């Protein structure tokens, strides 16, 4: 079974600069550069968004590529499928713009493009090794890793914290 890399978020590191959003939009533009992308039609859209909470925290939210994806089950035309990379993608030719996927997505990360009348979302940058948002993030708040790798790093961080804490007490 495949063990694809996912985009994880280290919420402590996000400064809310939205650099990831700009990089995502540029990556999904025709020209793939900022100067042209800003005037392109249909309007270029970022596929992730940094949301701000009253506490002052900002958190990037993007498609989790659910193993048991509600959007895929709900799509009436079968436009949503999992590709060979394990990424959930929408076939824009089949998409009829009914927004059922928008309705069932638990994270609110599927967008409606008002000019193309199609759904859009994170496609894990099929042309790149590392997704544009991850590469652009200036603080390393976005991490592209397999889930077991990511968990191991978290465990090690936890262990080193515990080790430090107990050393101080000794």
């Amino acid at each position, binding site marked *: 079974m495949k063990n694809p890399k996912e985009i994880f978020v280290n919420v402590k*590191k996000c*400064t*809310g*600069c*939205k650099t990831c959003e700009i990089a995502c939009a540029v990556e999904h533009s025709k020209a793939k550069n900022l100067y042209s992308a800003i005037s392109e039609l249909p309007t270029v859209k970022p596929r992730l968004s*940094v*949301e*701000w909470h009253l506490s002052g925290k*900002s958190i990037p939210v993007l498609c989790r590529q659910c193993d048991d994806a509600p959007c895929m089950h709900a799509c009436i035309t079968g436009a949503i499928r999992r590709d060979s990379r394990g990424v959930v993608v929408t076939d824009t030719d089949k998409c009829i713009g009914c927004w059922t996927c928008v309705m069932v997505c638990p994270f609110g990360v599927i967008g409606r493009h008002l000019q193309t009348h199609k759904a859009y979302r994170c496609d894990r940058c099929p042309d790149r090794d590392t997704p544009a948002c991850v590469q652009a993030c*200036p*603080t*390393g708040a976005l991490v592209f890793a397999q889930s077991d790798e990511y968990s191991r790093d978290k465990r090690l961080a936890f262990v080193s914290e515990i080790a430090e804490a107990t050393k101080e007490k000794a």
Partner: protein
Amino acid sequence: MTGHDEFKARSLDTAVQETLKKAKEKGIETVWDRYEKMLPQCGFGDTGLCCRHCLQGPCRINPFGDEPKTGICGATADVMVARGIDRAIAAGTAAHSGHAKHLAHTMLKMTEGKAKDYTIKDADKLKAVAKRLGISIEGKSDMQLAKEVAETALGDFAEKHEGVYWATTVLNEGRKKVLSSLNAIPKGIDHEVSEIMHRTLYGVDADAVNLLLGGLRCGVADLAGCYMGTDLADILFGTPKPVITKANMGVLKADMVNIAAHGHNPVLSEMIVKMAEEMKDEAISAGAKGINIVGICCTGNELMERHGIPACTHSVSQEMALLTGALDAIVVDYQCIMPSLVTVAECMGSKVITTMDICKITGAEHVEFTEQEAGQKAKEVIKIAIETFKRRKSKAVDIPNVQSTVIAGFSVEAIVSALMNVNPNDPLKPLLDNIKNGNIRGVCLFAGCNNVKVPQDKNFLTIAKKLLKNNVLVLATGCGAGALMRHGFMDPANVEGLCGEGLKAVLTAIGQANNLGGPLPPVIHLGSCVDNSRAVALVVHISNYLGVDIDKLPVVASAAEAVSEKAVSIGVYAVAMGLPTHVGVMLPVLGSPTVTSILTDKIKGLTGGYFIVDLDPETSADKLLSAINERRKALGL
């Protein structure tokens, strides 16, 4: 948030809350909506770790300490932050002194017979300013003297060996010594702005301390610009005396041609007031009861302190004035004018009229104002408003029934003359006796703007309430004064409820000695933002009287809801004067612990002043009080 709470979170002003409800119903976007759309704001900019000073950039440094740790050129976080704050000081200085330069040009043109609508309104002040500048007044006509003062003013912009007269002649000896030792006496106002632009250029000054000392000198140049602005405006338009008026949107009149003067300089707005009288009949024949001039922001303060023109609203709520539907034109000069006014005016069928060559707004009507044809141009503006009124008069308007009584216009001259009625031979003595005996614990100056990040007026009101209860004499300028006046803090009737016993007794005694039939207002209105110079003049006066330098006096300042770079430069000169200076919103300096500690701590060892950055108004008030107490203790009080 639902219902009214949503609007209370945006502003504490009930007139603004009421108007915000209308904006929501009509689907008109305001500054608060745009702020929400802007969130989250850039963390690099917020911490001062973003640099766009060269074309290799933009650069930003990781605020968490990971790479990148420097800009591409190698500039550290300390350098990046210091360069950024220096440029803000330069921008503020350029603005205040640009305002002053405009007045100087107007005055010079008047003396050359090229600005016939302007006259000398206060010849005594002209003579006093000339004397202070070292200009001989013997045998000279007022016009000749005004010409020399204007030329001296314009001469203060270029670099010269003697330094800036509006700095060297306004400071007390103690300050002059302190600032000279720090090489912080400006050589020329424009020179200092220009030098900041030079030293913050790619590959020039890369030492945070040196950069900040340059910024300090530019801050003193800003004081000079402000002081000059006040002096020249007083000479041309009169030195303010206390005047009773009103503030808040209730001052708009449905059956009159309502014109708001918005911006900063009295050069234009004075002409609007003057010509409104002449155009009254034209307004009446258009079906109006007359012309109602109201103020927004500092040009409003300028008109209020000299003519008692009521204030409509201030700073962050400027769009609200148009949303009432009752404003027929909003005429602007420069500074603090949100471009969004044009969109709101379009929605409401009103007009925004720009008048200055350096301040045009796409979509606004432009009437190029010149001193040569000042009256004529003012009439053109008023005509546009009358035309708008004709279309508007049959429509419903929503003027909030909210207004406060205000006593405004306390120039230093007016304060001294009020004190002379208490003690004619030694006017400052009663004030200082009361500071010594603790009836007045200290003095706090409120200045600056309303920032969308703070529920409008909340910081000003919370801090001022606490200080007044603790018998601190409160002075206010600019939109800080605006905030306090809209909530009744300049109404003598509220002395009873707001002030501590000691302060109450002093305000009452001065009021009675001046036959006011009651006390002075709880908060003393010093005027517009350039009129922060009046606060400096007052503390210099006290300092000279006591023979004690300003950094020892129990005097503090607060820009509780600052927005403009002008507030940054004012803050810097307050610190240069030796004042503990509170800022209630974050300055973009946190990215450099070094710069942060210099501004909030180490500079105390140099000028005696320092910044207190605190976003919580309750603890801010406590810190201001303890700064006052610390100084009282050091004086043995």
